[in-house]
């Protein structure tokens, strides 16, 4: 939370962004670019999930919010022929609205069972896209043939977004904006209020913080970002299905965030990138990968609940020299 911490984060962020920018220039392998694209998309999802979990809320419907973004944008593009640049804000806005409604219903009434409720909501949303309004959402088969993002024109220069590389740069641009917003949040006064809420909600209310308003805002923001990721997912893959947004992808995101560390903004980054790499080695062992995810969740909860970044923080804190004693202790 310190100024030096913020400076370090900005540097690391710039390094990461430039490193990511360079990837398509150093490799021609489409598979690797695919992996990088998925990783960036998952980064947006993981970072937005983390910011909600950092308030103590486990939103199991997070992947469903992504699904809302994907389905709404795809449906609007395919059924009404709207441009990607129009469906993007509408779809992400719908996801944000859904998150807001979810929050408004639950936060006033319920603390501890928020996750159970979001599990039920997730299942309902998945069922909805799977079984209802088949003409619009494709039913069990889902939507096939979602169009690529429309070309963007800057004066005489047109940017087409069809190739894998161009889509990669698109998601990179989305991630840079999302990460910038989340970093800004972390080091702002609002971020400090969120940290306060997490540590003691009643103490926060006792110093005048409107905790419910704060939580609703964070939840809405996280929903919007998940929606954006969903929109990209739909238009870059071209095919979406309700099973893309169910408990399996949700648990994967949970593992990324929890293993990386919920309290640190770099937690989801470490978790996502780490597991994306690990998953490449476990490609042929699908069940082993799931087993690993489960084992990681158990190990983290049991042994180092603050995740990898939390453990690193503690190591560094222990290495620091001891602080100055307070006046009273010195005077007594």
């Amino acid at each position, binding site marked *: 939370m310190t100024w030096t911490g913020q400076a370090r984060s900005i540097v690391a962020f710039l390094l990461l962004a430039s490193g990511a920018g360079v990837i398509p220039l150093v490799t021609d392998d489409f598979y690797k670019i695919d992996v990088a694209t998925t990783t960036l998309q998952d980064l947006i999802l993981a970072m937005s999930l983390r910011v909600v979990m950092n308030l103590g809320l486990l939103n199991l419907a997070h992947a469903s919010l992504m699904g809302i973004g994907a389905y709404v944008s795809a449906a609007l593009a395919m059924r009404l022929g709207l441009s990607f640049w129009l469906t993007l804000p509408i779809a992400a806005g719908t996801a944000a609205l859904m998150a807001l409604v979810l929050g408004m219903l639950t936060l006033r009434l319920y603390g501890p069972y928020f996750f159970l409720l979001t599990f039920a909501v997730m299942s309902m949303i998945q069922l909805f896209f799977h079984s209802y309004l088949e003409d619009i959402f494709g039913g069990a088969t889902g939507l096939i043939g979602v169009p690529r993002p429309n070309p963007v024109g800057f004066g005489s220069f047109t940017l087409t977004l069809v190739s894998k590389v161009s889509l990669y740069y698109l998601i990179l641009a989305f991630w840079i904006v999302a990460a910038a917003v989340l970093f*800004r949040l972390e080091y702002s006064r609002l971020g400090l209020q969120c940290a306060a809420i997490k540590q003691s909600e009643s103490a926060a209310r006792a110093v*005048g913080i409107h905790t419910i308003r704060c939580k609703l805002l964070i939840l809405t923001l996280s929903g919007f970002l998940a929606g954006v990721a969903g929109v990209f997912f739909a238009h870059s893959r071209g095919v979406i299905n309700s099973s893309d947004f169910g408990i399996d992808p949700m648990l994967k995101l949970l593992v990324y965030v929890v293993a990386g560390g919920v309290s640190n903004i770099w937690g989801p980054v470490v978790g996502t990138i780490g597991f994306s790499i690990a998953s490449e080695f476990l490609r042929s062992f699908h069940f082993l990968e799931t087993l690993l995810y489960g084992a990681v969740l158990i190990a983290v909860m049991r042994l180092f609940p603050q995740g990898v970044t939390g453990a690193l923080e503690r190591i560094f804190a222990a290495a620091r020299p001891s602080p100055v004693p307070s006046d009273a202790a010195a005077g007594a």
Partner: protein
Amino acid sequence: MPLLALENVTHFFGGLAAVKNLSFAVESGAIRGLIGPNGSGKSTVFNIIFGYLQASSGRIRFESCDITNHSTPSLVELGIARTFQATQIFDDLTVEENLTVSSQVVHRESLSKSFLRPALLDRDEAHLRTRARDILELVGLAAAAGRVARDLPYRDQKMLALANTMATGARLLMLDEPMAGLTMQETRAAMAVIRWARGEGATILLIEHDMRCIMELCDSIVVLDHGEKICDGTPDEVRRNPQVIEIYLGADECSK
């Protein structure tokens, strides 16, 4: 007009009345004590005023505003703040950050500005930071500004809780057993802080078990027993009131 007024406040806890038809007022600038044996309803009164518990009936007024059943953060915005018996501070934030977060009400800014302003580096905030520093000096935590709150000793944590409450800029400070667990010397220091706060224009409503402290510090005292007010007066009047003596010492003592 009194700063705070309770009018016939009752609160039912199941079938039991934890607080029964309670009425009292706190004048602006006073240090008022709220005492009574364990279970007499003192903390319940705080919880009702502060919005944690619903008043089953009756009204609570802050100046001319009816604040019955208001939400906690809106009460802080109006100018009332409290400490808790079980000290509540922000464990993982530094002392300085604790105060920064607590003063954001005084700063009174919108959520969007909170997003854009950096938490620690802001030239417009000079006077707020000076104020925070003054408070820290007063409670003896100035040198510990960079320490994480969790690492502080008990006395410092209690002082930090008090500092947070003062940093909100509230005009009415409700303190729930601020001296609990403090040594004689530390208690004197805490009393000095409370007097300073009154000097700065705050009004204080104080729950305490340390009788010497209450008698020395308070202008007037309200005594509760089983949720009802049995005495309301100056320390001398309270000290001599036979009912008060009875509930604290027991009827057999009285008959001696």
